[in-house]
């Protein structure tokens, strides 16, 4: 999927994550993560974000995430929502 616009999803509230997606000029996933549970789960969250984006076939993307201890399924859902908002193509629901 091609990131065309900037988009965001989520909130800054506890147990949620606020994600911003922007088009990026290079063919890579540029990730900025700040998390209230960074020491314990920082690497796991980064891995999850990158895997989710790769599964959606997304590159050329800048992701900024402000995590407040969201669970994996929340992180994944917020990220997918932001990506879909940033793309102009329709999602393939079976693959999500």
């Amino acid at each position, binding site marked *: 999927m091609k990131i065309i616009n900037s988009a*965001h999803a989520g909130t800054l509230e506890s147990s949620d994550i606020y994600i911003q997606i922007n088009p990026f000029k290079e063919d890579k996933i540029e990730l900025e993560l700040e998390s209230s549970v960074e020491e314990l789960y920082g690497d796991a969250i980064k891995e999850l974000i990158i895997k989710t984006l790769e599964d959606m076939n997304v590159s050329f993307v800048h992701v900024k995430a402000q995590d407040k201890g969201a669970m994996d399924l929340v992180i994944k859902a917020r990220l997918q929502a932001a990506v879909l908002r940033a793309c102009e193509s329709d999602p393939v629901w079976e693959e999500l």
Partner: protein
Amino acid sequence: MNSSISVSEFGSDNKRRVAKVKEFLDKNGLDMSSDVEVFVTIKDEDEMIACGGLAGKVLKCIAVDSSRRGQGLILKVVTHLLNAAFTRGTKELFLFSTPKNIKFFEDCGFRLIEECDGEVILMENSKNLAKYQAELSSLKKDGDVIGSIVMNANPFTLGHSYLIEEASKRSDWLHLFVVKEDASEFKFADRIRLIREGIKHLKNVTVHEGSDYIISKATFPTYFIKDKGQVNEIHAKLDLNVFRNQLAPYLGITHRFVGTEPYCKVTNNYNQNMKKILADPNGKSAPIEVVEIERIEFADQAISASRVRKLLNEKNYDELKNIVPPTTFEFLMKEII
């Protein structure tokens, strides 16, 4: 969280609701800011319990009712303000608040730029300050006296040119910052071009484009609404603290030059604060000596950009010609045709 809580967003043209926000801010010891364009409020039933505002790229007027603190309402307000900003295409944001809230806003992805007098803080959610500091470092020059001037030059007059020449004479190197905000009568591109043309003969001057960190709507919002007489001393102080602590050290600035200000109260007040804050021997960074240079006069009146604007209005071009350099005069004559 209580289900009776509702969030709404509205523009500054909604006078009735803005008045309610003002009342709420009053109650919480905060001032309303006249440049806010979008407000976010949180209500429980019909009672306002939190609010916040967006002015360009600055979040401000953020307050939570004293009885409702500790419930994370501030996070809700900031979420909605961020959404409002992003929807308008503004991603790199600043935030004005009070020092007790630093931790909350850090949790929202903001970093502290500067704190002033234990009263006010300026934060940003990008890493632009660090980038700007690195850029300044690369332009650093050696010398015993590294001078600096910050000017709007709206437009460039013989007064400005005299100030720059004097400062250039007294400095090994001079850094000249031009206010970048396009909020004045003359556009930034024109203002800086006229300065560059007017000081071509000086060899020890770097002309810097200003930034969000020097007399901008972020550091010093009331500068741009001074005609309305809304002077906020704390903004002036904040701007000067940012200059001293966050910018000057990266260029090794030792002096700041400024023209005496006989007319404009805001500018004169700024000059007085400049001496207090930049030259204070106790501070986070090295003090900067402030040198006030007497303005030159024409026909017993100090030359200033405001006088130029007045003469332009009066179409008094003969007198105007005497107080601006030829390059500025030519530009002004082209502009009015």
